């Protein structure tokens, strides 16, 4: 809500003037001429000059800052001009009658100093009054960037926000954490709020797991359903102090989305935005091309040996000989095939078209938008389609009564979303693991004349990728409705009562077919989810704004909120299609339907009061009490306070001229929270799906575990304090915003793993403790500002230190997830940051550091599996935006980086076993010398060769040393390039176009720095807490295309 839209409107009016009024014969005394300059004396192009009494009489300055304003005929009103330009203070100047030349100097905008931002509950507040850091991102940054999921577009933009899109194809989820992971519970993502009311961000049926199989797809999160074209702005509230008014769910921060509303105007405003983008695989692994398909130094020379070695490159030297036979049964030259990854995936495409109509009068304004997104993934037959209809209506019924309503309907359809994790039904294994002399396209179409999967290797669990593409079926449909309605009434002057109800509801249908004829499961499998989910919030507030005295302003709000979240889920699963190749739930020999009906309620009352002392000192006091349905009735509510303040140093004291603005801020807040799961208090028993006999067991949790419920659960508490400094220097051409924060979560509700010998695998305890602290720095600069050329820079960097302080008495760690076959695990370890990757190493001799070999197995002795390998979460994040404007051209370049995390690669582990990585070359020619010590400390020295598979099995056994497949996940990426051209619409005036803009847009163009040689370090496939694994998901892509935005 800055002046930007106004300025824009001014600009548009200026253009209108240019379009429709030129050429009229005017007498010279009706022409007011002048120049507009910036504070540094440079000419300002494109500044709007308008008659204050009649804004329709306006013009714009040319490149030299000159303007000519033609007054209406017989104009006798006051000669006052409003002169405005983006980035400058609007100025009103009076012109003497008869004065024909006006020279105006505009000051730099104080917009950033007096900026109004949207805060909790949708309350607009001056940024200077806030005791905490808040960052606002404008809507157009999302429309041009064109990430399907707007949360991905936050990547690199906001200090302390760790946002990452998943590599799961179109319609995939995002993972956003703000100031680190703050709870040991399952959800560390922020609360998404639209126009003040929360929306649902869940993934239907839950996010994919690290080691899942077949049905392990990312079904898309809630934020993916928001159309970027509908967004006016996004404010990021980074945690407790900013978000305390939202209560428990805000302890991870809040992302506030303000949608566009209509504006009073004559006629109908039309906005049209169209984008076409293409995407390609970004990283291709660096395989060895010395030895080709085969086993133990021998190439495959017939079908049977080709099938035995379909994904094994343990053969002979690649020499182009023609005895080679591949899994298609044909002879081929024995040559390297280096394009398998590129050949397996296609060029993906996304087309987005949106149109919006807006208008209204002084009483009622409306905006209606319709958008269609059609995306085809890089994996053939993968697609995602999203249709969004959005209607917003605001009406001032009387002077005191006004209503506001928003209705959004989404239809989202995904087809053949790709899984990650284990091999079965995961097509991504094929191009990565296929032998390096085989062309992946030889496996086409993946099935035989009966429609059954064709063998391409010795392990049927490793599906033929083309069979998966052509025969597996996945489809999901989400019908979503978001409705909000509010009524506000000004009871007395300055006292407004407001009631709001909002509902976010979706109905979701999903099925995933493992087809008849699959080698591993020849009779097929069915998995389905049918669910509807409702998130309801009712809110009543009373707010007052006034003055206690001449110097003290006050605004206060009290309110009450009720939240109810409920889901009715049926999980359908079945085995064996009785009639082959006929895929219906009724055609299964064994089927089960499991209901899951979680219901959560939270009721709250809250209040907050802001004091403003001479606009120099601001103080905010707040408090909230929550009642949680998921806690023990004896102890289900908690009160928590917050306090914050800011001090405008630059207005209180005379600072050197170097500083144009200085603000100090600080705040402290507590937020309480309930249990994440609904049925954590009482132990219950439920039926186990069975034929014939009735079976009953302890009701398992979502993960299928026996969990000891806790009848005494009490709220957890998250306490945050932060302090910050904002400086503007050199006439606001250089800005610094610095924040330090500390956030401590105590009494955290932890689903703790316990020894299964207790009869249960988990217990819910109330004693976890977690700490985050860190710094955030935002630097902004305007190095060049001339009439024709502007350069703006924004650099943000953040460091978050995270520590698991306590899990449960005497419990050193909890396992969160395990990779396929548990080759590495992700754990919470006391004293270490959230999400530590644990695994094995090769044992080394304590004295000499030599590898310890076992004389029994003739391999290095593996350590225990609890060696700390590294952090899964990057503590350092940064983003650098450079924006250049030259006349009608603009260029926006965003670099971002994350540092200090580790990633474990399942792909490399398998590629090692298959002999595809260069690291498997030593020893193939003349044997590999294993030198070290044995377990008694005596020297160990032996040479192993390819004979009888010994060398191959040695490398295969490398899977038992997790450390070999662990990499630094740090990177710097060229995240975004937008090159725009503002069309000179003068030439196409007949279309009544107000503005038109065409842009070249590109996302994820290059990785400028990385340590993962064979894959993109952002190869994540789940938006759960379980990060730090590369697990053979869809490759990440680079995207590029064109965007056209037209306003009528």
């Amino acid at each position: 809500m800055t002046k930007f839209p106004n300025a824009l409107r001014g600009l548009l009016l200026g253009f209108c003037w240019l379009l429709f009024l030129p050429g009229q014969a005017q007498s010279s005394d009706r022409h007011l001429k002048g120049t507009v300059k910036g504070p540094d004396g440079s000419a300002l192009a494109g500044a709007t000059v308008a008659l204050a009494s009649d804004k329709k009489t306006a013009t714009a300055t040319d490149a030299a800052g000159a303007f000519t304003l033609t007054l209406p005929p017989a104009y006798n009103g006051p000669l006052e001009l409003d002169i405005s330009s983006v980035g400058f203070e609007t100025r009103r100047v009076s012109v003497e009658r008869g004065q024909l030349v006006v020279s105006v100097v505009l000051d730099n905008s104080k917009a950033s100093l007096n900026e109004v931002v949207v805060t909790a509950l949708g309350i607009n507040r001056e940024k200077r009054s806030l005791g905490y850091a808040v960052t606002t991102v404008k809507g157009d940054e999302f429309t041009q960037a064109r990430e399907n999921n707007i949360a991905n577009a936050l990547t690199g933009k906001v200090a302390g926000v760790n946002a990452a899109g998943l590599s799961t194809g179109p319609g995939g989820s995002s993972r956003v954490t703000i100031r680190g992971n703050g709870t040991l519970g399952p959800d560390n993502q922020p609360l998404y709020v639209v126009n003040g009311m929360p929306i649902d961000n869940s993934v239907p049926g839950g996010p994919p797991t690290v080691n899942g199989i077949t049905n392990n797809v990312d079904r898309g999160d809630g934020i993916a359903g928001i159309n970027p074209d509908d967004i006016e702005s996004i404010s990021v509230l980074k945690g407790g102090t900013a978000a305390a008014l939202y209560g428990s769910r805000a302890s991870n921060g809040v992302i506030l989305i303000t949608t566009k509303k209509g504006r009073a105007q004559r006629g109908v405003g039309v906005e049209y935005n169209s984008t076409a983008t293409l995407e390609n695989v970004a990283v291709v692994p660096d395989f060895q091309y010395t030895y080709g398909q085969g086993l133990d130094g021998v190439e495959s020379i017939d079908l049977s040996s080709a099938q035995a070695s379909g994904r094994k490159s343990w053969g002979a030297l690649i020499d182009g000989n023609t005895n080679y036979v591949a899994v298609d049964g044909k002879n081929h030259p024995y040559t390297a095939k280096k394009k398998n990854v590129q050949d397996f995936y296609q060029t993906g495409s996304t087309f987005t078209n949106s149109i919006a109509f807006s208008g209204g009068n002084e009483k009622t304004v409306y905006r209606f938008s319709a958008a269609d997104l059609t995306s085809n993934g890089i994996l053939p037959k993968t697609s995602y389609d999203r249709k969004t209809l959005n209607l917003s209506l605001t009406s001032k019924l009387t002077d005191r009564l006004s209503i506001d309503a928003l209705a959004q309907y989404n239809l989202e359809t995904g087809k053949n979303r790709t899984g990650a994790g284990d091999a079965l039904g995961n097509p991504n294994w094929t191009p990565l693991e296929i032998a390096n002399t085989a062309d992946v396209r030889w496996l086409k179409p993946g099935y035989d004349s009966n429609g059954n999967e064709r063998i391409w290797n010795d392990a049927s669990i490793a599906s033929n990728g083309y069979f998966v593409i052509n025969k597996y079926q996945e489809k999901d449909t989400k019908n979503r409705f978001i409705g909000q309605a509010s009524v506000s009434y000004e009871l007395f002057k300055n006292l407004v009562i407001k009631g709001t109800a909002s509902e976010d509801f979706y109905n979701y249908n999903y099925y995933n077919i493992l087809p008849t004829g699959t080698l591993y499961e020849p009779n097929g499998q069915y998995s389905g989810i049918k669910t509807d989910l409702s998130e309801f919030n009712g809110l009543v507030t009373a707010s007052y704004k006034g003055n206690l005295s001449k110097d003290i302003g006050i605004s206060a709000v009290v309110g009450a909120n009720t939240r109810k979240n409920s889901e009715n889920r049926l999980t359908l699963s079945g085995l064996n299609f009785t009639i082959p190749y006929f895929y219906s739930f009724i055609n299964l020999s064994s089927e089960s339907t499991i209901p899951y009906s979680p219901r959560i309620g939270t009721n709250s009352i809250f209040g907050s009061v802001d004091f403003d002392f001479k606009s120099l000192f601001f103080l905010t006091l707040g408090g909230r009490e929550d009642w949680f349905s998921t806690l023990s009735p004896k102890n289900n509510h908690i009160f928590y306070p917050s306090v914050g303040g800011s001090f405008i140093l630059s207005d209180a004291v005379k600072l050197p001229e170097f500083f144009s603005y200085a603000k100090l801020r600080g705040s402290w807040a507590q937020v309480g929270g309930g249990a994440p799961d609904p049925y954590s208090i009482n132990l219950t028993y439920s039926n186990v799906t069975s034929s014939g006999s009735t079976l009953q067991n302890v009701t398992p949790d979502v993960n299928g575990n026996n969990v000891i419920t806790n009848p005494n659960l009490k709220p957890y508490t998250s306490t945050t304090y932060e302090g910050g400094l904002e400086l503007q220097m050199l006439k606001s051409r250089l800005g610094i915003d610095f924040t330090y924060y500390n956030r401590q979560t105590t009494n955290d509700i932890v689903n703790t793993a316990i020894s299964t010998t207790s009869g249960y695998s988990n217990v819910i305890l109330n004693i976890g403790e977690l700490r985050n602290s860190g710094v955030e720095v935002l630097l902004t600069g305007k190095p060049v500002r001339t009439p024709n050329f502007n350069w703006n820079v924004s650099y943000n960097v953040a460091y978050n230190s995270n520590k698991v302080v306590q899990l449960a008495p005497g419990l050193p760690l909890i396992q969160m997830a395990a990779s396929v076959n548990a080759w590495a695990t992700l754990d919470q370890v006391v004293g270490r940051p959230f999400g530590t990757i644990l695994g094995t190493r090769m044992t080394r001799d304590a004295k000499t550091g030599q590898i310890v070999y076992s004389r029994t197995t003739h391999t290095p002795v593996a350590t225990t599996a609890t060696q700390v390998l590294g952090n899964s979460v990057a503590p350092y994040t940064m983003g650098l935006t450079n924006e250049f404007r030259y006349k009608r051209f603009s260029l926006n370049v965003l670099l971002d980086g994350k540092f200090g995390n580790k990633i474990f690669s399942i792909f490399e582990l398998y590629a090692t076993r298959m002999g595809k990585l260069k690291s498997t070359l030593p020893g193939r020619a003349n044997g590999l010398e294993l030198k070290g010590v044995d377990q008694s400390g005596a020297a160990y020295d032996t040479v192993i060769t390819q004979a009888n598979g010994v060398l191959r099995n040695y490398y295969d056994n490398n899977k038992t040393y997790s450390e070999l497949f662990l990499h630094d996940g740090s990177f710097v990426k060229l995240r975004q390039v937008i090159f725009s051209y503002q069309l000179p619409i003068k030439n196409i005036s007949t279309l009544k176009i107000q503005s038109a803009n065409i842009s070249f847009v590109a996302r994820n163009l290059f990785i400028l720095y990385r340590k993962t040689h064979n894959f993109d370090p952002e190869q994540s496939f789940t938006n759960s807490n379980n990060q730090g694994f590369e697990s053979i998901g869809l490759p990440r892509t680079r995207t590029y295309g064109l965007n056209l935005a037209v306003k009528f």
Partner: protein
Amino acid sequence: MKNLNKGILIAGLAAFGLSSCDKGYKDLNTNPDAVSKPTPQYVFTLAEYNGAGAGGHYGSSSSDLLLGTMQYTTSYNDVAGFGSKYIQSQVQQTGSAFGAAYPDEINQLNIVIKAVKTDPSKVNWLAIARIWRAYCFMRLTDLYGDVPYTEAGLGYDSAVYKPAYDPQSTIYPSLLSELDAAAQSLDATKSSYGSADLIYGGSPAQWKKFAYSLMLRMGMRLTKVDIASAQTWVTKAIGGGVIMQDADIAMMHYISTGQDINKNPEILNLWNSDYIAQNGQTNTEGGKYADSWISYLQSTNDPRLPIISIVWIGGKPDTTSYKQKGMPQNIPNKLPANFITYSEPNPATVLGLGSPKLLFTAAESYFLLTEAALRGWYSGATAVSLYEQGVRAAMRHWSIIAGSAGTIQQPAIDAYVANNALVSGTLDQQLRQIYTQFWVSIFPNADEVYNNYRRTGYPALVPNNYPTNATGGQIFRRFEYPISEQNLNTTNYNAAVARQGADDLMTRIWWDKQ
């Protein structure tokens, strides 16, 4: 200011309307899909399913793993072939049965026992649950040695999250006494589980026989470590009455259609992990019968060979004995070109998903009684005749399991018996014959073959000295605890390791004294 006060008052009143703020939460917290009290017989049936199943999916099933170790089956694939190859990188597979047993059958039986123990009309419910729990604990301690026993399964009731491990030397006497006490408390006049008991339909008389048969099995287990106790308990068991008739065989009943849990778990494992394609070539995890198994049956002209084994010829299963061929156990992790020529389980007999799982058979009683007779602990019949009855009873197993498809003709049985009478000689020579025959007879119950192998050394299998094996080329002596115990139950785990020996495959458990 006045207005402000009024506003606050009004908003405060509005908020107060909400401040009976947890109304309806009790309702909200009641899971509509669950009940708050268990129904004991339904939980018991599940405990039977879980206890008889050897703990889950492919790789975690101790029975399927031991099929490889006892050299019935093997796989060219190292992962699936762990049981027959004992390679280092897969030793974690042995921890699964431990991890699954407690949250499943042990906890379920504790729930049942808690629900019925104070009800005098349910003495049989209690006794049967105790006997079944003894069976389940016995299986655990036989695989792992020291295990949590007295403190196990008390997580919910007593908040014991880290149960201590009991030494096997105390678990065994306790289980034996438990069997005795439970058997004696059975009362034919009182109610029982009826059809919820998938083993005996609730029959107290048959559960009594099962209890004493388990006592016989356990008592005999002690021959190496405590011969006197072995004699005491074997004698007591025989006195109590063990399973001698086919009608009394303890077996779990399954159905071939419906949910997986209702199917024979061991067969389902074999089916899903290898033989579902039924073409001899695309066996999912590369499994086949092992060479030692098939060649032994051929060398003894065993009439069971064509019953249990087939080879795919021309797309059809062929049961001809001489065409059968077992797969070598040392194939280095690659699909052999002649994979299709190796024998695999006969789908008509061995692979029936609805076929019963024999938990304790008359044949086992006869073989154990043969040993008892040889040791002079039993004089009800001669060792020679007991042995012969054992062989004959075992021949009948396949008709019990598979009906007519598994029926062996009487002349063939007679001929085999005639050629395989109990030799006279040293006890060791006789034990060699008994427990080699036991290996042939009890298939596919690899668990019990493995137990007797460890106790007697027979069958005298030649261990597979496969590269990167974890045992120095020896058949392992126990399973390893799951790694999670190291983190979640550290102190007790360490105490057990300190007492029993390193947590590895070659450490011997208490009764497996060198």
